[in-house]
């Protein structure tokens, strides 16, 4: 970032750092209201069963129980987050579709009574055969998860760009590989909670959400309320990673319980219930076929995927399009066929998780590309440099790329990791791998069709000018948007970060914004905040010109000091003086900003998904040490080089790289949600679901390359999700380099590495 900026490009203290570090910050589950009740949801013990009867009479008699509700007490209108497939009910009506499906709920005077009441609800089930294997979900005669979706097909995509047959016919070499991903869960540190208050026809919900807007829209729709009568407030949120983007049973059941009892109701998930609610990463089965010329230049790709969607759609339609859509970003090729089927199964529903749809296909493609490089005798770095996307290009599926420094990322990663010295020269058991990634800087279109701007912002300068409040619908869930947006607003105003206040993510007091997903806020919300700040500055310079008797065009404001650009010795005045004068003469000093995305993308079916005003790019190199006898994988060091445009807050940026990489490390080696043969989760807790610990993290080097994105305010673009995308493929390639074995399913567990080495020794498997 240029030195000319006073506030952006700097490591300012996080605006909520003190509150979080001292424990003063209140999350939804910490909130207390007078007369508040506690609510819990009763869930299904069966993966697939008919509901024959529900008897709530015993539960209702228990002292302390204030309400018991089932599907009879709530709207029957189906909801979802993908409008194409609204397939969920607040409570199951005729049957349950996974272990954890919602059946009833209670509101009680305390948490303990809730658990006792749930045990007293008697549900009679007729157990049905269940679909637990995605690859057999489409079989003739397989049980139907939803009657409306024959053969359990939830989403089917067939896209064809260029002339793949011709490309393959002309290819020097064609290779086909098959890889399998795994189910993972976001595991935010804060469990989902909501406090619902339905009073006098107005519904207010405090919720641990990534998007007050979508909650407001879908909750108003479900209950037939005007959006203006639904207020969603986001308190502090302890992480989302895609798992808190859609309203859950907590908000819907809590609202009805509040309406019936006339009291605030706090509903919440425990860790087990979070795993059951899920909406984590889809398990994708991936077949890739690629044709290349003699030099390893990619001529055409066929991606043929099946994914396990679980019992409901969630964001899975978008996930499915992303899975293939984003594969065209990092490498340039002109012929591409993408086939994808997302099936329903009787398992928890999958949704969007950091890197939405991209990381598993990227794992497959980066492993596949290394196989091709090996077959042709080309260095893995070299084959990537030969195919790397260049700036100002358009992908074959119509995504416009402005800035793109992928080549520079690859070169820098190679330099700082010592790739050229290490490759081929490391001792046995030690290996080095490379992979690339890319991600959208905000989805080009909202989740449900509408013409609202992506973001709007408002700034109100206090009457004496000693503070300014930024009002934004943008959602800080821990990633630091409140801090970055205040920096951007202050920069645009010519003001100081230290004097900024922020009110964010409250549908009643803050302007519209779609929320924290698809890595959109720095670019999109930032654009609106910048514009609002510029409007303040214009007004403050205008009033200053009358005070200073200088033309407004000659004035500027920086860090709260208004000065003449042409006369450095002219007397300056402060922002405070000018702001106060403004209020006295003209009333409140307000600035407004709004950001619309220009129309993006092609016209084919699904063309809207994965469009974005800008795309980040990155290269990752990792070095691993493999225990040749036990298969233990020790990731020693990772080098991540990002092209994320200009940087607003370097420390937060590198924090995002570390966090995204942490999740990638976990998904690469450890994490997998496992089920028994009845569809019950075997590891729904943080003892059994293996997140990496601090001790398991490699040494991380996060570096940047110089880049400027014309579509972003001050040249910014995405960083928060991109660093998750290359990691799994990067580690797999390093393991291959170390031991000559290719692990074709995630996670890359010690046992899988051990088995692959054993099979190689015994000559069972050719790689």
């Amino acid at each position, binding site marked *: 970032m240029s030195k000319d900026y006073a506030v952006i490009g700097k490591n300012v203290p996080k605006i909520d750092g003190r509150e979080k570090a001292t424990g003063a910050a209140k999350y939804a589950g910490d909130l207390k209201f007078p007369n508040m009740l506690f609510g819990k949801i009763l869930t299904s013990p069966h993966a697939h069963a008919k509901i024959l009867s529900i008897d709530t009479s015993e539960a209702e008699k228990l002292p302390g129980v204030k309400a018991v509700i089932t599907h009879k007490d709530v709207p029957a209108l189906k909801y979802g987050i993908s409008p194409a497939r609204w397939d969920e009910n607040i409570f199951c009506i005729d049957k349950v579709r996974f272990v954890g499906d919602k059946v009833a709920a209670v509101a009680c005077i305390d*948490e*303990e009574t*809730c*658990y006792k009441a749930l045990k007293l609800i008697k549900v009679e089930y007729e157990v049905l055969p269940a679909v637990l294997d995605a690859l057999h979900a489409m079989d003739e005669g397989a049980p139907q998860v939803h009657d409306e979706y024959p053969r359990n097909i939830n989403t089917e995509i067939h896209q064809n760009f260029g002339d793949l047959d011709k490309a393959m016919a002309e290819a020097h070499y064609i290779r086909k590989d098959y890889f399998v991903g795994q189910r993972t869960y976001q595991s935010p540190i804060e469990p989902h909670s909501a406090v619902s208050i339905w009073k006098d026809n107005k519904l207010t919900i405090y919720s641990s959400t990534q998007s007050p807007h979508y909650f407001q829209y879908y909750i108003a729709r479900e209950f037939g309320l005007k959006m203006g009568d639904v207020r969603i407030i986001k308190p502090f949120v302890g992480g989302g990673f895609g798992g808190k983007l859609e309203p859950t049973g907590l908000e819907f059941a809590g609202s009805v319980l509040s309406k019936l009892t006339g009291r605030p109701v706090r509903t919440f998930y*425990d*860790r*087990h219930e979070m795993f059951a609610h899920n909406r984590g990463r889809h398990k994708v089965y991936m077949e890739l076929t690629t044709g290349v010329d003699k030099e390893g230049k990619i001529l055409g790709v066929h991606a043929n995927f099946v994914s396990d969607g679980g019992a409901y759609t969630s964001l899975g339609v978008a996930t499915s399009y992303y899975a293939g859509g984003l594969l065209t970003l990092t490498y340039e090729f002109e012929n591409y066929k993408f086939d994808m089927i997302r099936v329903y199964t009787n398992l928890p529903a999958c949704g969007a998780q950091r890197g939405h749809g991209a990381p598993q296909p990227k794992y497959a493609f980066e492993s596949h590309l290394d196989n091709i490089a090996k077959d042709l005798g080309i260095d893995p770095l070299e084959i990537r440099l030969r195919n790397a996307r260049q700036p100002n290009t358009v992908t074959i599926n119509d995504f416009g790329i402005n800035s793109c420094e992928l080549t520079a990322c690859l070169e820098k990663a190679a330099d700082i990791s010592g790739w050229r010295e290490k490759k081929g020269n490391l001792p046995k058991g030690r290996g080095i791998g490379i992979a690339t990634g890319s991600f959208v800087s905000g989805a080009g279109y909202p989740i449900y069709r509408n013409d609202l701007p992506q973001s709007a912002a408002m700034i109100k300068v206090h009457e004496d000018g000693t503070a300014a409040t930024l009002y934004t619908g943008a959602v800080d869930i821990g990633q630091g948007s409140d801090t970055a947006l205040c920096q951007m607003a202050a920069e645009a105003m010519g003001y100081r970060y230290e004097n900024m206040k922020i009110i964010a993510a409250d549908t009643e007091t803050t302007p519209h914004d779609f929320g924290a997903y698809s890595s959109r806020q720095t670019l999109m919300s930032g654009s609106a905040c910048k514009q609002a700040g510029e409007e303040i500055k214009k007004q403050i310079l205008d009033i200053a010109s009358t005070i200073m008797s200088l033309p407004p065009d000659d004035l500027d404001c920086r860090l709260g000091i208004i000065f003449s650009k042409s006369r450095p010795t002219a007397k300056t005045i402060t922002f405070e003086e000018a702001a106060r004068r403004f209020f006295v003469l003209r009333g409140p000093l307000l600035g407004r900003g709004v950001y619309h995305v220009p129309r993006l993308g092609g016209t084919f079916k699904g063309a809207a998904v994965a469009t974005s005003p800008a795309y980040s790019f990155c290269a990752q190199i990792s070095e691993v040490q493999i225990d040749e*006898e*036990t298969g*233990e994988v020790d990731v020693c060091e990772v080098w991540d080089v990002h092209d994320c445009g200009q940087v607003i807050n370097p420390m937060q940026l590198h924090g995002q790289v570390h966090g995204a990489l942490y999740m990638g490390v976990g998904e690469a080696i*450890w994490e997998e949600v*496992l089920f028994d043969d009845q569809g019950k989760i*075997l*590891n729904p807790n*943080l*003892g*059994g679901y*293996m997140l*990496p*610990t*601090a*001790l*398991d993290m490699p040494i991380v080097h996060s570096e940047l390359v110089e880049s400027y994105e014309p579509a972003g305010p001050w040249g910014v673009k995405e960083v928060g999700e991109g660093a998750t995308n290359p990691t799994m493929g990067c580690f797999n390639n390093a393991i291959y380099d170390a031991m000559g074995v290719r692990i074709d399913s995630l996670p890359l*567990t*010690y*046992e899988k590495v*051990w*088995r692959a080495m*054993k099979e190689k020794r015994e000559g069972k498997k050719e790689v």
Partner: protein
Amino acid sequence: MYLPDFDYYAPDSLAETCEALERFGAKAKVLSGGTDIIAKMKSGLLSPGVLISLKKLEDLKKIDYVSGKGVVIGALSTHNDLVNSKILNDKYLSVSEAAHNMASNQIRNIGTVGGNLCNAVPSADLPPILIALGATIKLVGTKGERVMLLEDLFTGPMKTVIAENEILTEIVIPDQLSTGSNYIKFGLRRSGALAVVGIAVAVTVNGGTITEAKIAIGAAAPTPIRAREAEKFLQGKTISDDLLAEAGVIASGESKPISDIRGSAEYRRDLIRVLTRRALHKAINEGHV
């Protein structure tokens, strides 16, 4: 996830504790650190009507060296007490290290040695190293007390010989002839992981010859086991790489592991082969580490 109702007692003395256990019989459970039982009660796996807490039995929270007897570890010592004990660090660092590699710091701070043993989970980290060192335990009940080898405590997964009115009060690591001991836990991450397998060895080496070896393995069978064939094989032999490797093969053959979400039986058997060799190597060359 909520605790079911239960009655709670915290007796002032060992005698009262045993009396309470006798009075409530099968419906009572002992509460020590609580890291296991509370989790099981919350998830509905256990619902004892009565919990009898040992927290007032201060005498059971100690680690002493008693001349002529050995290192005496009170059953209420926490894992971190083992980690930080100067006596253990000096004499049997292998025991401190086994405790250090368990669970997470929060659990090591509250979970107790007695709980870890009485819980009798096949993957528990402390039994193998204590068995390899020939540790004895003392059980006290209403009808008196008895002392036995730790390895005789276990009868199956989560099953022991402890009677309803008995509690485990102390563990004694007797003075050793052995010259080295070591425990290798193979977990799937570096903290907060259960052992996929855990191998403990204690060896007595005299001028290049193994005069005695004890090998105890966790997560290899329904209870912690001794690899007696491998021990016999090593006895009186001259140390060599091949010898230790062969002992690993024999120990692996003696194990009867199961397949579960942490690893297949086949993988576990091979890990036992490799890690037995490594543990022997370490104990022979580095002492009690």
